[in-house]
């Protein structure tokens, strides 16, 4: 068995007295597509945000590709990582945000090409070409010169996906990518994500309330509650025969609600 590409080792995170991650143990294998489900406030977004280095941790160690994310090895002990280490680690990850978080003053193409130029050092021309290929892939080839506010929410989120992919990350993080969208626009975004999920090498970590979609694309579904992973299994196991009462209650609530 290959080593996990992501590993949370007894990770703790709190805001004041509120424990958001509570000794969390959690692993994702290379190329695996994992969906996290759970009630509001269970720490789902926090897991992704910690991985994207948007949120620090208070306890434990997070590993990405066998290297500690938030720590550096120094003289055999782990010390809090400096910005240089974080920059190096961040390259392996890409994130798609619930609210898209596109740069409103940049054209669609520039939104995608900016980081490849500034961070990867591509020429503007090569980066634009990469952007155009990605736009083609997400079905927006004709929108390159528009600004985000000229697009629908579904189109904006597809740009968001293209923007993250332009950095060629090993792991893609999706934090409720469709929950800010009108119902009729959800499908076009899920289609793009489903297509990505068919790529063998890409590791995907997805937080969603779209249970049917989760079932289709995931290798594994994890149920989070109160900052811990309470149950996990294949979609079939988890959705048809959940073991924990908490999981059953949650699924009953969302599937009927």
């Amino acid at each position, binding site marked *: 068995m290959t080593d996990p590409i992501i590993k949370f080792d007894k990770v703790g995170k709190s805001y004041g007295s509120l424990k958001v991650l509570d000794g969390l143990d959690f692993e994702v294998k290379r190329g695996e597509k994992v969906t996290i489900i759970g009630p509001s406030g269970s720490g789902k977004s926090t897991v992704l945000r910690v991985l994207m280095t948007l949120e620090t941790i208070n306890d434990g160690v997070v590993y990405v590709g066998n290297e500690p994310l938030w720590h550096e090895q120094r003289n055999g002990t782990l010390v809090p990582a400096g910005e240089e280490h974080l920059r190096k680690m961040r390259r392996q990850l890409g994130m798609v*945000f619930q609210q898209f978080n596109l740069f409103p003053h940049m054209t669609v193409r520039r939104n995608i090409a900016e980081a490849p130029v500034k961070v990867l050092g591509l020429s503007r021309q090569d980066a634009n070409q990469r952007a155009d290929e990605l736009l083609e892939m997400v079905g927006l080839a004709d929108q390159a010169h528009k600004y985000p506010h000229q697009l629908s929410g579904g189109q904006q989120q597809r740009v968001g996906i293209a*923007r993250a992919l332009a950095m060629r990350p090993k792991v893609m993080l999706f934090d409720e990518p469709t929950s800010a969208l009108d119902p009729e626009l959800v499908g076009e975004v899920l289609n793009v994500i489903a297509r990505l999920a068919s790529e063998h090498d890409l590791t995907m970590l997805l937080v969603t309330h779209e249970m049917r979609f989760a079932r289709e694309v995931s290798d594994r579904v994890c149920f989070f509650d109160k900052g811990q992973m309470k149950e996990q299994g294949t979609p079939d196991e988890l959705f048809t025969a959940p073991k924990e009462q908490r999981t059953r209650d949650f699924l009953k609530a969302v599937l009927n609600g």
Partner: protein
Amino acid sequence: MLFGFEWDTSSELAFAWSILPILLIGLWVTVQATVLGFVVALVLGLILAVLKGAPSRLISWPANVLCEFIRDTPLLIQLFFLYYVLPEYGLVLPAFMTGALALGLQYSAYTSEVYRAGLQAIGRDQREAARALNFPSAHTFTHVLLPQAIPRIIPAMGNYLVSIMKDVPVLSVVTVLEMLNVAKIIGDRTFDYMVPLSMVGGLYLIMTLVASAGVRLLDTRLPKQGLPLK
């Protein structure tokens, strides 16, 4: 006679007409001092805003103290300081330059606050997107935050432009021949203060109206979502 122009005191109207070119020369000086002072205030204010927002207290604290000091002291003190003290350290600038610098310095304390408010108004989501994409922090500042802040701060900056314009007469104390100073000299020599001073008032009104209209035009022209990057 001033700047080679004679005045005609035969009637009020003739007098007004004859000193107009002289006042316009003064007006041009006022405009130049305003523009230069404003540019200094914009640049220095941005630098101060960055320093005040620095994560290290060692940097933000002195910047805050400096701003507070500038804000809480009269423009005249800074002007005298630059005009009389700097030369003691071998830095001799023409009176005009010193004056524009003092104006810019004074107003940089205010513009830095405008920048800060404008930058803070940009949501956390933009910083997070930039961070997730691994942008260098300087790039995030110049290409993500600043272009979005600029359209929002135009009206406030425009107000300071007009304020600077109205403060230019202070420079007369260090012999700068701006418009009001010119009018006063004409008054001293002709014993008629009414006409030149009224004209200065009118010209000022025109200048501030034009400046405000320009700022409003810029405000409506700039896309609200930020300076566009193609």
